[in-house]
């Protein structure tokens, strides 16, 4: 047995060959069944080890829907489909009703029961018709009825037109994609015991703590000299909170966020900070991830995503837990949370 076959097959299976070596291996595999067999064996082994050691993750509910849409299996999500169908069906019904009303008006005009609006206008515009004449008498009988009827029908048409526009607008809102459009969600995270009034993002319009915090973090990111920072701070240090704070900035349209932390003490040995998100759905907090162990020296920032653009965060929680053992946020392990809960 030549173990070189298996070495080469392993390096190929583990992608450790460069492009040229990989091409040579692939070419050789076509003509050498032993090499081919060795490669398949390594592929099986790699798949088995990967499946054994990886922790399965549950895909988001939208994952399968996106896949179906992409493959053209199902054009729309059920709820969207029914919303769209109901919207368009209502629009069609309203259009038919509108057409029937108009047809009815025309029919009644043809039968002489309704005078067309212009006739009414003409009647109104001819006040000089001599009183007592047959024409004046007939006009006097029909004019009030015609005006009332016309006014009522016009109002109904306006109402129906409004309904139609509303439904059309609703469908546009539901299905229109606005490229590049994003409204970031910005929150303040503070220790649970900090009062609501102390944790406001905009305590002072002129010297916002948010601006100060972000400036602090940006200085840390760009590596500005710390001496300069301490001796001549660009922001009013008095406005910065003394306690740990964090500001998650999340763009739901792109599922991309940044967490800016400040004054967060480094986690002690064997402990880490974990980030959680709470959603408007009101279910338990969803685990986002763990901050790197060497983080949180002064101000720092971290990228994160929630795995789906369909998650709308209603709040964030930062907990401190033993390494590799994150637990659901409780009062005991919560370090920061936001937005702050109102005082009881």
């Amino acid at each position, binding site marked *: 047995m030549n173990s070189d076959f298996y070495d080469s097959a*392993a390096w190929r299976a583990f992608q*450790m060959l460069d492009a040229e070596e990989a091409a040579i291996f692939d070419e050789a595999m076509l003509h050498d069944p032993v090499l081919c067999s060795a490669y398949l064996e390594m592929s*099986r082994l790699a798949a088995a080890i990967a499946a054994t050691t990886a922790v399965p993750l549950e895909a988001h509910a939208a994952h*399968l829907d996106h*896949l179906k849409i992409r*493959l053209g299996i199902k054009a729309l999500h059920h709820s969207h489909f029914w919303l769209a169908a109901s919207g368009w069906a209502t629009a069609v019904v309203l259009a038919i009703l509108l057409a029937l009303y108009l047809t009815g008006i025309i029919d009644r005009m043809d039968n002489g029961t309704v005078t067309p609006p212009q006739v009414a206008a003409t009647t109104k515009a001819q006040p000089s018709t001599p009183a007592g004449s047959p024409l004046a008498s007939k006009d006097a009988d029909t004019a009030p009825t015609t005006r009332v009827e016309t006014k009522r029908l016009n109002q109904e048409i306006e109402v129906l037109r409004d309904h139609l526009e509303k439904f059309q607008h609703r469908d546009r809102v539901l299905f229109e994609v606005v490229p590049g459009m994003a409204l970031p969600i910005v929150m303040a995270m503070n220790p649970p015991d900090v009062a609501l009034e102390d944790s406001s993002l905009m305590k002072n319009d002129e010297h916002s703590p948010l601006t100060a915090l972000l400036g602090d973090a940006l200085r840390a990111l760009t590596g500005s000299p710390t001496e300069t920072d301490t001796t001549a701070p660009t922001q009013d240090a008095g406005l910065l909170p003394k306690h740990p704070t964090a500001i998650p900035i999340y763009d739901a349209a792109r599922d991309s966020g940044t967490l800016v932390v400040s004054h967060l003490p480094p986690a002690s040995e064997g402990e880490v900070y974990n980030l959680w998100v709470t959603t408007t759905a009101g279910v338990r907090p969803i*685990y986002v991830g763990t*901050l790197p162990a060497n983080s949180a020296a002064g101000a720092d920032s971290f*990228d994160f995503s929630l795995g789906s653009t369909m998650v709308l965060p209603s709040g964030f929680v930062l907990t401190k837990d033993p390494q590799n053992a994150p637990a659901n946020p409780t009062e005991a392990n919560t370090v920061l949370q936001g937005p702050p809960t109102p005082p009881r």
Partner: protein
Amino acid sequence: MVEIELSPIHALRTGLCEDPSGEAAGLLARVAQADAAALVELHGLWSPILLGIAGQILGDRREAEKVVQESFVHLWQRAAGYDAHQMPPFVWAFSVMQRYCIERLRSRRRGPRAVAHLGPIHPPSPQEKPDHSRVLAADDLRRVRAALDQLTPEERHALVAAVFLQYSHVQISHTQEPPLSVVKNHLRQALTKTRNCLSRYEL
């Protein structure tokens, strides 16, 4: 008790990663006939473990979800050409997903990420419990775990890291650490031991 060191037998049991119940192969056959229900079922069967593997390779759950979706699109389009005699169904799906992961790793190398100050905060949720039972036969799981357990920590780390492409040419050329010779040495030992251990079950 003296443990007898067996000489290497360079053949794995043919059943490793096989699909003894034929469930996955049957679903793939239906997918080949554009059966959407079969794809949904296959997605439910494989996507959690594929997502876990891709997440570990890429270190980014969002990217991992994209890769898994690409893989299922590939499976849907190429299921008709799948030959069960060449490769078990899951190994095929794994190799397809691995290729997409490699593409992602290469694209990362070409263009550095815009935000360099990046925290690796995409590990699995503690609520997500492992469930391999429908992907790998219980016997395979037991054998592979036993084989990994008898490795030294360095060998095990090297093998698992290699499986998750942490030592791929892209990564090594990018980081230059650790030295390739050291990695290959650990890997050789790990592979020899693993394959010996797996072969032992054949005896």
